[in-house]
């Protein structure tokens, strides 16, 4: 029996502006540890909304969200921020690095916030992550000076720094060429296979989705397959 890492029970969500509209309709989802999951569907089907809801950043919904067996529905925003810091890593379509910091500093910041290790060790661990992603030579460059593919890999290293159980990607390859997309995909594959981390990625990229472990297709706020 595989361990369940994330589970939703009867999640519904409405947008009230400009008029009330149901974006998510009775979502029941189980995600297992070590799974590489793709969330696909047409624009406006609610897949991104679902992902942000699963990421705990969006708290305006009805239903229950559990991650690692902990019920996160109704928790305070500051508690959820701490929870994300420990358990969830993010990779976005537009890399979202802090432009005034070097690549290495960007990777270190979530760990400095967590303060699980002293700074010297965080630096060492951040270098290891950058090495694993093959961009250790860029570590002291300002993040704004890196190419798109390099920035995305720095962002992945940042997502990994606190060894989160769950990694979420919002179109992680959406803004990359095919070579870089392949690199990112291989990294994700390796993370689930070798490190047992779970990945949930929203994607439009059919190749990316086809090669993942499981595809969840959404349409009009419902899971259809």
């Amino acid at each position, binding site marked *: 029996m595989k361990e369940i890492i994330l589970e939703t029970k009867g999640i519904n969500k409405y947008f009230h502006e400009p008029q009330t509209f149901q974006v998510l309709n009775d979502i029941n989802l189980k995600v297992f540890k070590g799974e590489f999951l793709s969330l696909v569907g047409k624009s406006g089907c609610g897949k*991104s909304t679902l992902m*942000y809801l699963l*990421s705990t*950043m*969006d708290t305006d919904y009805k239903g229950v969200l559990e991650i690692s067996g902990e019920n996160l529905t109704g928790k305070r*925003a*500051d508690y959820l*921020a*701490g*929870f*994300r*810091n*420990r358990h969830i890593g*993010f990779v*976005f*379509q*537009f890399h*979202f*690095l*802090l*432009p*005034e*910091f070097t690549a290495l500093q960007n990777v270190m*910041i*979530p760990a*400095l*916030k*967590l303060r699980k290790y002293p*700074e010297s060790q965080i630096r060492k661990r951040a270098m290891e992550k950058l090495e694993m992603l093959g961009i250790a030579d860029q570590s002291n460059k300002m993040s704004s000076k890196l190419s798109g593919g390099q920035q995305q890999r720095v962002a992945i290293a*940042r997502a990994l720094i*606190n060894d989160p159980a769950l990694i979420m990607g*919002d179109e992680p390859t959406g803004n990359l060429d095919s070579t870089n997309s392949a690199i990112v995909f291989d990294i994700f594959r390796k993370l689930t296979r070798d490190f047992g981390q779970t990945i949930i990625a929203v994607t439009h990229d059919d190749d990316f989705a086809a090669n993942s472990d499981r595809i969840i297709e959404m349409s009009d706020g419902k899971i259809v397959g």
Partner: protein
Amino acid sequence: MRVILSIAKTHLLAKPKQSLVAMLGVTFGIGMFVAMVSLMSGLNNFTEELTMTSSPDIHIYKDISEPQVAIIEQLNPEGVNFVHHPKPKNESQKIRNAFQIAELIRQDPDVLGAAPQLSSQVFYNFGPIQLNGNIAGVDILEEDKLFDLSSKMKGGEIAGLLTTTNGLIMGSGLAKTLSLSVGDNVTVTTPDGVTISLKVVGIFQMGLGEIDNIRSYANISTVQKILGKDQAYITDINVKLIDLYQAKAKAVQIQSIFGYKAEDWETANATFLAGAVIRNIMTYSVSITLLIVAGFGIYNILNMTIFSKMKDIAILKATGFAAKDVTGIFMTQSLVIGLVGSVLGLILGFVLSYLLSLAPFDGGDVIAIDALPVSFDPLYYVIGIVFGVFTTAVAGYMPSRKAGHVDPIEIIRGI
């Protein structure tokens, strides 16, 4: 929370020009505040000191202008009495047993000294011209103890009064107008028409035109003689206290014991003190206006910074920074701006105050100074830095709070 500090530092250093402009706003505000307060309180202290040195803490005299009860009121208290425009009767201004009263007051441990004196309006004859002024008959040694007269002598010695029968120590302004110097004679006419020739044995300068231009000191006996009064005739007793702020309470006590009017310096100098209060109000309101303007500058700059850092805020919140952490990052920035700006402001304020204290200033006939009096009281520097940090904290709080409550999803999805 070292990571918050280091992010705040990086933000500040990433846009040095913008941080500097925000800082200079505070610097200018605090600098002007310190300089203005220093000058204003320097002036206030200076004039207060002048007034204090030349006027007694408590002035005892017989007040003949106090309303008197008509005799008919005493005889017929129940009836309806009409007394039309009563006038005081010819009453002597003499304080009875003045020397004994002065001796009794001197025995009080709070009292520094008590000097009996009598004064009179006189005319100083300058050729055919008569100049209005007054003459005070004093025990010069006691007067010196109270007002430190010997340090204010511009010529001659106070001891000259003891050795010369018809001696006179004259105010510098008066001496200049009469073109007199030490050793010259001057003719004085009293209101009763008595004319007497006195010898100038000394010239003093208090620094206040209203005294230097009209007053002379002579021995008590000399003044008694020109007024044609007896040896016990004294019109005033001047009292100096060890702590001048006890004057108000002490004056009430003295008045009730001896039955003569005792006026404390605060009442006597009410207009001057009111002026000081108004100057202080002006100084503080101008300074607060400057600081509010600096505060708006910080508010604007922080708002702009936060607007341009929306993506960064979203990413920080997504990766686990709580609202209070994000607020902390921007609050730290405004406090650093406030603190550094204020410290620079104190330095600027000190430099300005120092330059002002060097600026030549001619007080003319009114007050005798050659440079602006400036106070360097550390208290104003403490007030300055507290003001500066407080203003920036208030100005920074609103945008920082807003930054803390940015919804990361809106920013991330809005792209």
